[in-house]
């Protein structure tokens, strides 16, 4: 009876319009009466109408993606009703503006990033080294004899690496003097990379110029075994996956000796580098949202070489280097409730360096423990808070067997930070925060403010600005002599414009940076140090990436202009340091040819001449090297789903790049200082590797990890 009565009742016509707060119509919105089937979709003009047989009071709901739900009670006893639904914009982390000043984020998960984790492995000339690949991005300067990242007029040690938020004390492997070192961490371990060339979050301390933040992968989904046969060694890796956990281990052996036997080297090796390296990672999901990770690696490397005297090349010194490295990182991440989540971690680094130079033996010991807790909270859709505390504990000493004095230090830095992202709308965000640090050696407390803003100028373009104060303890080699040295400081000002349109990205960034409290030699004496050094860096950088115009091809172009001077260490006055180059330009090109199942890659880099100090001249650092140029290529061939053949060659054209000059410490008979050029260890580095993957699913291969 009830049903019949319902059917006989008069129908109500509900009509109206859906608009945003500016009165613009919203087409495609879903309009419904709660708990009934009745409703409709708004038209192109935002208008809608529908009939309902429902009676009494019902709730009308209007929904559209990107807007907050609209609700209104309607009394359906009337035969006609008109509704104007005004939808308010919802602040959505995925849609909202992001702060891009100084930052190059790369992630497999987020699809809006402009640099992908996979790019690191497939960039020609990078030889699967993280620093090598990032060196093709703007803001970096090529310093070929170091292999490290140099950012915006900063020294190589001013770039700090963080894994899952935890500081890595020594991110590069050992290398002979004036030969490039490689990063200790393989790119395939990470699902995301965020490379910041300035203005970064208050979460990252003890980094003067740049923060390289690496996010390790979560648990693996399938078990597999990988073999790699390389022209310079071999490796084997196994991954075991369970329902909520996975374990992966890798052992690698690198021996460059046979390769160096074939190809003439600039360095006079007694024993070319041999290293054995192992790493292991365990991941466990805990409950609904918890993730527990442990990662560890060890590396032992050994080499020795003859250092030839500049004045008389027949006079040689034997240098023998033994290096041991251990790294352990444990982290736990979980959500505490709907609003708050927790990240915590503990990392341990131990580096032992044993250097024998003729009769003198130096044993260097560097141990660090870093512990950290961070809370992330979404207080509302407009306010995000990040706050945390950490302690960085470092123990360093270097013992020389000819002396009983052991220079070193024990530094403890407790720190806390807080930072808030305030969204005015999806278009405008302000990030304000600061960092407080205490230093036990100086018994000093410091506060470093950071602020950044980002504003979306249109659908695809945005402007960001960042400012911050940054500090970092002096290098071990200075701090060990003088424990009272203050932290070196810098201020960054960055302005950035970025446009991302359908797989094309354009970016331009300008910056100004000042340095203060840099370590300086008093009257040129390297044993009497003070903090009176200073400097500046400024520049403009351009980046363009396009993987749309040419089918199956992806390329990017970077250009950086740098103007910098610093008065520090041994410089008599402010000069452009020898690692700085005014112009850096690179083009990276990757082309996949499906017919040949092959990806071809090429990278061209150009770096303008770098200063060097010629003691035969009056003016300090007045020499200029010729420009550095390099064309590198790589080829990956996939004949079978589980097999990859990889070939790469750096400096294909064999250009004799000179990075600088070393001078004799004494004048010769004619009152002249003799010199020797610092060259590449060899004109080219040729690498060939075969990678085989065994798994149940035969389509898995090592491409993502190459």
């Amino acid at each position, binding site marked *: 009876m009830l049903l019949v009565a319902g059917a006989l009742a008069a129908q109500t016509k509900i009509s109206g319009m859906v608009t945003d707060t500016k009165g613009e119509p919203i087409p495609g919105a879903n309009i*419904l009466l709660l708990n009934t089937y009745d409703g409709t979709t708004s038209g192109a003009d935002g208008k809608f109408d529908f009939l309902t047989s429902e009676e009494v009071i019902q709730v009308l709901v209007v929904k559209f993606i990107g807007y907050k739900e609209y609700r209104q009670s309607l009394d359906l006893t009337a035969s006609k009703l008109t509704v104007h639904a005004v939808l308010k914009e919802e602040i959505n982390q995925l849609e909202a503006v992001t702060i891009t000043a100084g930052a190059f984020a790369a992630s497999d998960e987020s699809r809006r990033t402009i640099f992908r984790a996979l790019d690191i492995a497939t960039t020609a000339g990078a030889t699967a080294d993280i620093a090598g690949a990032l060196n093709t991005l703007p803001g970096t300067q090529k310093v070929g004899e170091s292999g490290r990242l140099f950012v915006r007029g900063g020294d190589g040690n001013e770039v700090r690496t963080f894994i899952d938020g935890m500081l890595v004390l020594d991110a590069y492997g050992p290398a002979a003097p004036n030969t490039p070192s490689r990063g200790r961490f393989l790119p395939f371990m990470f699902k995301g990379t965020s490379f910041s060339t300035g203005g970064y979050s208050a979460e990252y301390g003890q980094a003067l110029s740049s923060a390289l933040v690496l996010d390790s992968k979560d648990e693996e989904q399938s078990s597999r075994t990988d073999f790699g046969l390389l022209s310079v060694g071999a490796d084997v890796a196994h991954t075991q996956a369970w329902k909520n956990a996975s374990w992966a281990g890798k052992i690698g052996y690198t021996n460059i000796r046979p390769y160096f036997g074939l190809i003439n080297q600039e360095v006079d090796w007694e024993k070319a580098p041999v290293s054995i390296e192992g790493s292991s990672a365990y991941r466990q999901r805990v409950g609904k949202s918890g993730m527990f990770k442990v990662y560890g690696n060890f590396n032992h490397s050994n080499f020795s070489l003859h250092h030839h005297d500049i004045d008389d090349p027949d006079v040689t010194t034997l240098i023998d280097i033994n290096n041991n490295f251990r790294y352990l990182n444990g982290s736990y991440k979980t959500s505490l409730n709907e609003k708050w989540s927790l990240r915590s971690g503990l990392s341990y680094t131990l580096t032992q360096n044993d250097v024998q130079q003729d009769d003198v033996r130096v044993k260097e010991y560097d141990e660090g423990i870093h512990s950290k807790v961070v809370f992330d909270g979404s207080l509302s859709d407009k306010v995000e808070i990040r706050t945390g505390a950490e302690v960085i504990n470092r123990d360093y000493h270097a013992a020389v067997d000819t002396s009983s004095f052991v220079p070193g230090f024990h530094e403890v830095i407790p720190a806390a930070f807080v930072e808030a992202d305030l969204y005015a709308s999806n278009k405008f965000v302000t990030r304000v925060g600061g960092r407080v640090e205490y230093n036990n050696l100086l018994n000093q407390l410091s506060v470093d403010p950071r602020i950044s803003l980002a504003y979306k100028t249109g659908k695809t373009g945005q402007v960001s600005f960042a400012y911050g104060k940054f500090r970092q303890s002096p290098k071990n080699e200075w701090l060990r002599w003088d424990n009272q040295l203050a932290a070196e400081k810098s201020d960054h000002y960055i302005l950035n414009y970025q446009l991302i349109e359908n797989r094309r990205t354009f970016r331009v960034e300008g910056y100004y940076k000042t340095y203060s409290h840099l370590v300086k030699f008093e009257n040129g004496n390297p044993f009497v140090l003070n903090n009176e050094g200073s400097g500046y860096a400024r520049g403009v950088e351009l980046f363009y990436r396009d993987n749309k115009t040419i089918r199956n091809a992806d390329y990017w172009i970077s250009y950086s202009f740098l103007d910098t001077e610093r008065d520090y260490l041994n410089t008599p006055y402010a000069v452009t340091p020898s690692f700085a180059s005014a112009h850096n330009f690179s083009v990276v090109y990757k082309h996949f040819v499906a017919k040949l199942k092959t990806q071809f890659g090429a990278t061209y880099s150009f770096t303008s001449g770098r200063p060097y100090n010629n003691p035969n001249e009056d003016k300090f650092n007045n020499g200029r090297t010729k420009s550095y140029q390099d064309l590198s290529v790589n080829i990956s061939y996939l004949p079978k*789903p589980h097999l990859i053949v990889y070939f790469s060659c750096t400096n294909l054209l064999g250009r004799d790049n000179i990075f600088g000059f070393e001078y004799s410490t004494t004048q010769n008979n004619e009152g002249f200082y003799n010199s020797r050029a610092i060259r590449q260890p060899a004109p080219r580095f040729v690498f060939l590797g075969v990678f085989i993957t065994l798994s149940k699913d035969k389509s898995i291969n090592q491409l*993502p990890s190459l």
Partner: protein
Amino acid sequence: MKTINIIPLALLVLALLAFKSAANDRYIESMQKNMQLVYTAKTIDELQMAVNAFERIGEAEKNKWEPFYYASFGYVMMATREKEAQKKDAYLDLSLKALEKAKAINPGESEITTMEGFVHMMRVTVDPATRGQQYSGLAMQTFGKAIAMNPENPRALSLMAQMQYGTAQFFGASTAEACGTLNKALEKFETFKSDNPLAPTWGKPMAEGMRAQCK
């Protein structure tokens, strides 16, 4: 005494059953109408209308997986018609979101898992060069799961066949395995029977189109 009590009770039960079946009829009727719409829609706007209707039904019913499943299907179809990469991804995100609701209601349904694989497969088409590796593996794993849940599901088999065919062709390997899966899929499309009047029926023309490649 007892008879007197039973009669109103029986009447009540009958009335309730009638009410329930009337409601159920209305559910099936509304669903079928919109399924027709989503299967035949040509434009993104038409698909949006169908998807909205499914979401309305889903919100009202709360414990039925089909509305969210078809909303998810509608979003995948919208992605196939969209040209802009970013929007394509946005539709696929919405598709997964709707699918999650369906999954929460009926986690063991092979059709839902198949749709999940379909979304991964579509992700590849947005940017094959950089996504192929990651998402095609994921799609195949998911189709494998769907087949394990119901070996009779022709859609899971036919999409799996497509992935296998693509992989084999890429590596110049034999397509025998892919064609074997396809034949099984075609067979299951003929025999597929479900008690559920709202069971999906899509995918057959796509499988038949592939038959020519397997000759």
